């Protein structure tokens, strides 16, 4: 349908605008001023408007959800709303959401949404409530909520193609290069700033006879796709462009895949084609890999002596630059209110509380993730209570300035990851990048066309 296509365009333009603004810096902030803002500041906000009601919240298991559950009594005391939190592992949470949303009568009023996987699908299904009306209503949004405080990348993520804002930003996941400073120092190698230098450093540090591998990253199909799409950003390239055209056989796509192949086929531990983040974490945490490229959320386990042998030795570096640009592959989660719920008000209150400044600062202080609010990074209390190294926070802030969504925001994102993931895994065992990408592109094209047409 033409209408759908037009919507997709406008959404892409939005994202582009959002991420462009992101490149200008976190501090810049995309201000979403409302005329009511001035009034709001004076208004006496009534948190107890829904006193006595009860809501159900469905979250995916993560250190961030643990924080929300831990501080939940605070919300209950503030509002008089009773909350039942259901925290289930991510894969099962996604199944549960789909099953319940399609039934039209979900059992949860608030749920966590993984933008990089579910945004397109939930947007098309109209599963979540458009929160703009509540956000503009001084009786519904506390004066100190400060929507402009969210980073532009987060706002772009939280906004759908047609301008609906159906989630409140909670966490942004940037990809960074973890490096083992001890191994680098022993060989006198400097931290690589570009992909080219990364390959050279991996070669210099690779010493399997002494139990050190130059580089590790996900090789397992599906899981491995963000490694490649993030590398592609160095060529200022995206896998699917604004017109919905696949750009996966371009020079940039092949060059990024070639870097992936060089690093994983030559300098990674044996069996890397079966590695997801956990095998990579194990390898790096045991001190047997010099570098690891993955999401920013692994500082807590890497700095925990019960789980890691590299405590105090980890450097947190930015995603290496390509020949044309330096970005950081970005993913994220938000909280949304079920459209099918009959408790929109209390559910919105919870989402609002969960994403307020204090809770976002707690995310940072505990190293549970990367808050979507810029204020968290300058919060003196959060910085004083850090349980992770300052270097991690520095990497987080610097990544925020160059963050760019790494996966295309399409409905069939799982199929995209599966098909191109197999191509990448094949490359590790020696297949030609150009041929593999051409084959995968042909396989995926009809799936994408079908999803854009429907």
């Amino acid at each position: 349908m033409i209408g759908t296509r037009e919507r997709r365009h406008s959404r892409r333009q939005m994202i582009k605008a959002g991420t462009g603004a992101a490149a200008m810096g976190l501090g810049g902030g995309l201000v979403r001023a409302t005329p009511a803002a001035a009034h709001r500041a004076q208004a006496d906000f009534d948190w107890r408007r829904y006193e006595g009601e009860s809501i159900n919240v469905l979250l995916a298991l993560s250190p961030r959800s643990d924080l929300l559950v831990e501080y939940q009594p605070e919300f209950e005391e503030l509002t008089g709303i009773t909350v039942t939190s259901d925290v289930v592992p991510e894969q099962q949470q996604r199944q549960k959401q789909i099953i319940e949303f399609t039934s039209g009568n979900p059992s949860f009023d608030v749920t966590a949404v993984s933008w990089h996987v579910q945004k397109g699908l939930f947007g098309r299904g109209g599963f979540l409530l458009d929160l703009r009306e509540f956000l503009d209503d001084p009786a519904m949004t506390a004066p100190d909520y400060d929507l402009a405080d969210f980073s532009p990348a987060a706002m772009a993520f939280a906004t759908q193609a047609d301008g609906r804002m159906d989630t409140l930003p909670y966490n942004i996941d940037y990809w960074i290069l973890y490096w083992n400073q001890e191994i680098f120092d022993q060989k006198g190698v400097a931290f690589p700033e570009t992909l080219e230098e990364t390959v050279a450093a991996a070669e210099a540090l690779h010493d399997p006879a002494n139990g050190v591998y130059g580089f590790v990253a996900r090789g397992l199909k599906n899981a491995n796709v963000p490694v490649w799409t993030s590398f592609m950003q160095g060529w200022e390239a995206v896998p699917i462009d604004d017109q919905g055209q696949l750009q996966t056989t371009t020079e940039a796509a092949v060059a990024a895949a070639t870097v992936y192949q060089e690093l994983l086929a030559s300098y990674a531990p044996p069996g890397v084609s079966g590695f997801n983040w956990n095998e990579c974490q194990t390898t790096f945490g045991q001190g047997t890999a010099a570098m690891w490229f993955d999401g920013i959320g692994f500082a807590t386990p890497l700095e925990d002596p019960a789980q890691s042998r590299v405590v105090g030795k980890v450097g947190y570096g930015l995603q290496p630059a390509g020949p044309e640009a330096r970005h950081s592959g970005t993913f994220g989660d938000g909280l949304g209110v079920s459209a099918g719920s009959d408790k929109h008000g209390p559910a919105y209150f919870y989402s609002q509380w969960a994403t307020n400044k204090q809770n976002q600062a707690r995310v940072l202080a505990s190293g549970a993730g990367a808050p979507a609010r810029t204020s968290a990074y300058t919060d003196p209390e959060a910085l004083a209570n850090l349980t992770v190294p300052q270097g991690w926070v520095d990497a987080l802030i610097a990544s925020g300035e160059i963050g760019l969504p790494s996966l295309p925001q399409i409905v069939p994102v799982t199929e995209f990851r599966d098909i191109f993931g197999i191509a990448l895994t094949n490359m590790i065992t020696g297949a030609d990048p150009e041929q593999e990408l051409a084959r995968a592109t042909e396989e995926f094209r009809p799936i994408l066309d079908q999803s854009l047409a429907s």
Partner: protein
Amino acid sequence: MGVASTALPRGQTVPLALRWRRLGRRLGFLCGLAVLLSPALFVFLWMLSLSLKPDVENTAFPPVFIPTSPTLDNFREVFATSPFALYGRNSFVVATAATLLSLLVGVPAGYGIAKAKAHGLAFVVLVSRMTPGLSYLIPWFMLFRALGLHNTLWALIITHLVIGLPITIWVMMGFFEDLHPELEEAALVDGGGIWAAFRDVALPLARPGMVVAAILAFIFSWNNFVFAVVLAGPDTRTLPVAVFNVLTFEQLAWGKLAAAALVVTLPVLLLTVLVQRQIVAGMTTGGMKG
């Protein structure tokens, strides 16, 4: 076993060559046994080893099998972070109720199908077992929401019947088909109806079958994960969910995972060991040998 049947009468000396051959056979038998059991045993022992080590040792390479600093922290943490007692009680109630209901319906059904030779019907019953459980979830969810059974143990018990019932019917069918028709005919000749033949003759003879069916139905129900995730709420979840709750993105916890898995496996393991005697006893004392 051939090894046992070659025993000679007391007092006779065994020729040396025969004795060696017998020893060889016994060794071969033990080696074969070890090879056959090793996949199951090794995994179990490895799980035990994981649960007693801190994670930094669990992810070490080369792997450490015997813990250098054994610890019970993993178990402690599992019990501290998950409502194990509640989930355990839920699991027990659901598995027991589902098993009993499966037997109640499945045993007469199996008898009926076996006696009527209704193989088409038997196949239809099996279809529900062959269909992936996930495909039932949406209709079930809608149904239970409408009936107000969502988030209750009843929802789980009913859904677990889909797994337990076909197994029970099929196991019982096999047992009843093997039963000598003369035994039931005797009951009929004595003036009892088909119901009496079932109740007084077939049922007692099929007790080992019922035990097998009950164990299988119980284990399947006990281990079922996905129904509990979708159809149960925070207070009605079962134990397998507690095992998965140990795994989170960004956190590795092999030790805790193994500890949780052990705690969840233990009741079923004990049950099987206990009931196994029943099966063996049933097989040797029953009328099954004709």
